[in-house]
């Protein structure tokens, strides 16, 4: 977890918030706002996914927790008559209730087995959304007519700008929590586990505890994104929580850089722009997008966010090289 960002966590976070706040002032175009809302939602999803990827393994179930919370929130509002503002905090807890058992199972495994058990779980959840409890979940034609968030303190959330503001606030809340976590002992330990799980264990770090915490906190914030998604898209379908959207989230996070809490932000924004730009290319879109993934991973394995760090270290090494030559060693 590279602590040494240039500007320190608080300033960087403020910068991100400033850009987010400035955006609706710059453009009222609903398409831009829609893309911006999706980006803000994906930022929350990738930052919470990074928490878990940072321990070094690919978790394919993250999108399922988003789905579970989305359906839970939609049903809480449409069937139980709860207000959105009650469903919003409850839905992530439902996701967490699923995340604890699955986490305990998955985290005892490593490498490919972890990937496969989370993949298996995500497919079971997708199949349930598509084929089972059809009366409740809407089955293959999806859950439709999910109302927009009910008004709060006189504010309504039915149009694009207001939904953007809501998602931006949810993202910033999540970002603050995730950044504080990252710059705390928890962040230090999960980064240590990623670099060498054995060394961390022999130094007294409760590896399973840290990993499970990352897994469940990740599921909670994915749940928040899910609740928002349900009430802003008004339609839920199993294809939104299948393999394709999940691998995209992993790509945003790893291309951005798993090693730093800022990695997913860089990855999500750049890759979302790339795919929107490539939208006209149709069949060539997936071709170019695939090449972008391959080339980035080969030339920048630690993700785009590691580039400034690498440049600075190269500069530092050149400076230090001169220092050693002058005999300023360590213990002399």
């Amino acid at each position, binding site marked *: *977890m*590279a*602590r*040494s960002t240039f500007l320190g966590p608080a300033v960087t976070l403020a910068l991100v918030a400033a850009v987010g706040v400035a955006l609706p002032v710059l453009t009222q175009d609903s398409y831009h706002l829609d893309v911006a809302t999706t980006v803000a939602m994906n930022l929350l999803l990738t930052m919470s996914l990074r928490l878990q990827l940072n321990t070094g393994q690919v978790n394919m179930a993250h999108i399922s927790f988003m789905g579970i919370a989305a359906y839970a929130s939609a049903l809480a509002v449409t069937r139980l008559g709860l207000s959105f503002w009650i469903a919003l905090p409850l839905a992530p807890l439902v996701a967490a209730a699923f995340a604890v058992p699955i986490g305990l199972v998955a985290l005892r495994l490593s490498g490919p087995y972890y990937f496969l058990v989370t993949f298996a779980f995500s497919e079971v959840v997708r199949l349930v959304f598509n084929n089972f409890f059809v009366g409740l979940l809407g089955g293959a034609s999806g859950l439709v007519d999910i109302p927009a968030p009910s008004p709060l303190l006189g504010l309504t959330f039915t149009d694009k700008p207001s939904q953007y503001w809501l998602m931006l606030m949810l993202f910033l809340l999540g970002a603050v*929590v995730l950044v*504080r*976590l990252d710059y*705390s*002992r*928890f962040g*230090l*330990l999960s*980064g*240590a586990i990623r*670099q*060498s799980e*054995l*060394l*961390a*264990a*022999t*130094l*007294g*770090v*409760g*590896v399973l*505890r*840290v990993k499970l*915490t990352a897994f469940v*906190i990740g599921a909670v914030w994915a749940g928040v994104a899910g609740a928002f998604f349900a009430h802003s898209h008004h339609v839920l379908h199993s294809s939104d929580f299948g393999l394709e959207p999940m691998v995209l989230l992993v790509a945003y996070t790893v291309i951005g850089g798993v*090693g730093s809490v800022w990695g997913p932000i860089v990855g999500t924004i750049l890759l979302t722009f790339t795919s929107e730009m490539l939208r006209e290319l149709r069949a060539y879109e997936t071709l170019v997008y695939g090449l972008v993934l391959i080339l980035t991973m080969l030339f920048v394995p630690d993700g785009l966010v590691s580039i400034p760090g690498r440049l600075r*270290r190269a500069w*530092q*090494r050149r400076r*230090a090289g001169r220092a050693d030559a002058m005999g*300023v060693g*360590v*213990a*002399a």
Partner: protein
Amino acid sequence: MLLELAGVSRRFGGLAAVADLSMTVAEGAIHGLIGPNGAGKSTVFNLVSGVLPVSAGAIRFRQAPITGLTPAEICRRGIARTFQATTVFREYTVRQNLLVAAQPRVNDGTLAALFRLRDYREREAAAVARTGELVSTLHLDLIADRMVAGLPHRDQKALSVGMALATGATLLLLDEPLAGLTLAETREVMDLLRTVRAGGITVLLVEHDMRAVMDLCDRITVLDHGTRIAEGTPREIQTDPAVIEAYLGAEA
């Protein structure tokens, strides 16, 4: 006795890396563990630190059994170790490496961390303070904030010993801390080990530099093919025929 191994063995398939080994380590001593390559020294470290489960026998620390505990639990009981191939967190700075090791007994309470509760802040401050002390005792001040990946091998070795100390352990298992060091650096680390012993910390030392072992250790256990062939003071070990035979091959 601080550490006791009773009839400990570890088999990999047919091969017995450690066979029915019994030995004890006195508190406050520097206890040498020597033997030719493949004698099972690193395996003993892996068994004591919980990285490998024993095939048979029991290990007791302060009279309490620790066989079967996880490496993290054993570390919290007070046993820290380094690895033969110096393993450190390469993407972290020196200070961050020490900080990871500095709080084994603190539960990594994330909620506490989240809301910066008072006791979390105190323990965090204590850890940072301890890290500061260690940086100076290990003379790592100049490179304290440099990324470990770029550091020369000797600094990384010093850091790995420092991290073992940072856990606040009372028993250190050091796996060849002097390997690859110059004469000056070897003397430097030996002084460090003496100050560590003076601070009441016990050291179990695996090392091939015989002069350093004979100079440093209070007692020495000699392993060959996984079993104990001798134990005693440095002088006794130097004159023990079984040891000479194991090291120099059947001369006579």
